[in-house]
């Protein structure tokens, strides 16, 4: 039976992982996600799981690597500076082809920055899995319920592609409270898979988890195999949500907490007679490029709203390929775009015509 409770985003994320059968968590405290390790420390032992506080994020992600290689559903969470430190381990996880989930509750940066909400790790998340040709499949929930649901889906996606999956949210989503519908906690899947290490190796061929390929052709082949999985994810694990006018003149594109703000603004603009539609990618990599290209051929203008200096907008522009003008409305450094900011911008854009050469 599912029950509805009031939870912080951090707690929903942690409970979502436990409900999805995650039994191992390795992490290092950093604001604004401390409630995740705290929740794990309290609740993982209830289900026979292990919470371990690592000496650093470098160590945490490498513990995740070991646990994943041993077949566990395993997770870590951090915020921006800690995610920077995890890049090395993520690269090995990509290269060694093992699954795990990493949560990034993004805060203001660069440097030590601040603990305010930000979306300025967009490139780090969608481009980065450290060095080399790998990336993180990245999903961006926009509510407490979605954090709970998506962390669970993230494990399935990670295991499907034997790759790291990043849940990308921010300081607001991490700390705000909302009602959340909980499922009963599921049992973890068995540790043993054909590729995992551990258990009794005398009954099978010994397994090796490795990312060292000195033969260039072999390394290229591995990279092509990894890319093929990303292509498959583009077909099978691409997620976006649309709302607003069916025949928009302006398409608004935003993810995560920005999309939450844009929902209100798009509603208000439509009430004011400006036909707007919101496209909210949940999967940031894979990115809904084809869908964006379709809209770009139909709308007058596109407005991108993000809490960073123009990272997300680059993916939108790559998809739009100049078919229509793309404008950016952004705040950064811990500041948030308000529904008023976005509504005003939409009304201004509607007043400036024409937007495209027609």
């Amino acid at each position, binding site marked *: 039976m599912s029950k509805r409770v009031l939870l912080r985003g951090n707690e929903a994320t942690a409970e979502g992982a436990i409900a999805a059968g995650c039994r191992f968590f*390795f992490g290092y405290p950093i604001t604004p996600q401390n409630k995740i390790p705290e929740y794990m420390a309290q609740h993982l032992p209830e289900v026979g799981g292990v919470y371990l506080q690592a000496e650093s994020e470098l160590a945490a992600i*490498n513990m995740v690597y*070991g646990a994943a290689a041993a077949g566990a559903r395993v997770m870590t969470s951090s915020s921006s500076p800690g995610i920077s430190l995890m890049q090395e381990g993520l690269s090995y996880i990509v290269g060694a082809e093992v699954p795990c989930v990493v949560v990034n509750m993004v805060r203001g940066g660069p440097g030590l920055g601040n603990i305010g909400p930000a979306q300025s790790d967009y490139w780090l998340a969608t481009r980065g899995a450290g060095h080399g040709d790998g990336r993180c499949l990245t999903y961006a929930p926009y509510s407490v319920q979605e954090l709970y649901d998506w962390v669970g889906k993230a494990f399935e996606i990670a295991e499907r592609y034997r790759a790291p999956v990043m849940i990308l949210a921010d300081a607001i989503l991490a700390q705000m409270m909302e009602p959340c519908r909980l499922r009963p906690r599921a049992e973890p899947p068995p540790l043993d898979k054909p590729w995992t290490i551990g258990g009794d190796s005398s009954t099978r061929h010994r397994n090796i988890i490795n990312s060292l390929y000195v033969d260039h052709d072999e390394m290229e082949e591995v990279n092509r195999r990894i890319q093929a999985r990303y292509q498959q994810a583009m077909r099978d694990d691409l997620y976006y949500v649309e709302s607003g006018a069916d025949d928009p003149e302006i398409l608004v594109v935003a993810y995560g907490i920005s999309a939450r703000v844009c929902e209100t603004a798009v509603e208000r603009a439509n009430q004011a007679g400006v036909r707007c539609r919101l496209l909210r990618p949940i999967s940031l990599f894979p990115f809904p490029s084809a869908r964006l290209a379709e809209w770009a051929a139909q709308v007058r203008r596109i407005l991108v709203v993000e809490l960073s200096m123009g990272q997300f907008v680059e993916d939108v522009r790559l998809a739009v390929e100049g078919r229509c003008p793309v404008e950016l409305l952004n705040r950064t450094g811990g500041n948030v775009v308000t529904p008023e900011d976005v509504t005003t911008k939409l009304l201004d854009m509607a007043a400036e015509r024409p937007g495209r050469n027609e």
Partner: protein
Amino acid sequence: MSETTHIQLDNLQVIYKKPDALTDTPMRYCPGCTHGIAHRLVAEVIDELGIKHRTITIASVGCSVYAYEYFDTDAIQAAHGRAPAVATGIKRVRPDNIVFTYQGDGDLAAIGLAEVLHAASRAENITVIFINNAVFGMTQGQMAPTTLLGQKTTTTPTGRSVERGGHPINICEMMTCIPGVAYLARETMAAPKYVNRAKRSIKRAFEAQIRGLGFSLVELVSSCPTWWGLRPLEALKHIEEKMLPQYPLKVFVDKVSGAGEGGEGNA
């Protein structure tokens, strides 16, 4: 094959062979390098303890990066210095498996110092084989944290000085005060007389893990004839004459036999 040869072969007796825990893959180590002896000793111990089927080898980054090809066990390759963290993740998921890391002095004492010290202080039930050859072998002979004062390396061309390179790090002495350590010893393979006691310490270290006593580490003072610029025999002599005064052989902690510090005495 003739009848007589066949009979002769039947009469032969195997008195020395490759341990089961080693694969048939030819090792890539330089002539005179003691990495190979260290592998053999670890493999013999795995055979004698009957734990091959449940052992997991963790290769680090250094000349022994291919350890996963040499040990005939489940294996994983870890990022430079992070092997004890990877071992932690594995052991927490698979407490019934025997998990050991094989790390050089660059890997363990430079980039991975935090990981090994914290694994020890958590009393992580893993075993570390620590190869101290006082140099970064794989990357062509640069200074390591364990490089001796005065020792010439490719990055201390006039010899290591305190002013420019700092002091050598004695890992075992440093770890002696960590309560999570169940077995801690420094050994060498520089002459036959040292080899048996080195193997005994390696066995004790694995026994510590099997008995769930906590963290175990055996430092093996090793040779790198290639980057020391010495012939294999000279390199072994160099260990005895130059390395052992800085890195004396000793069982520092032994909770396996309960003998405590210095239980096995100095060599």
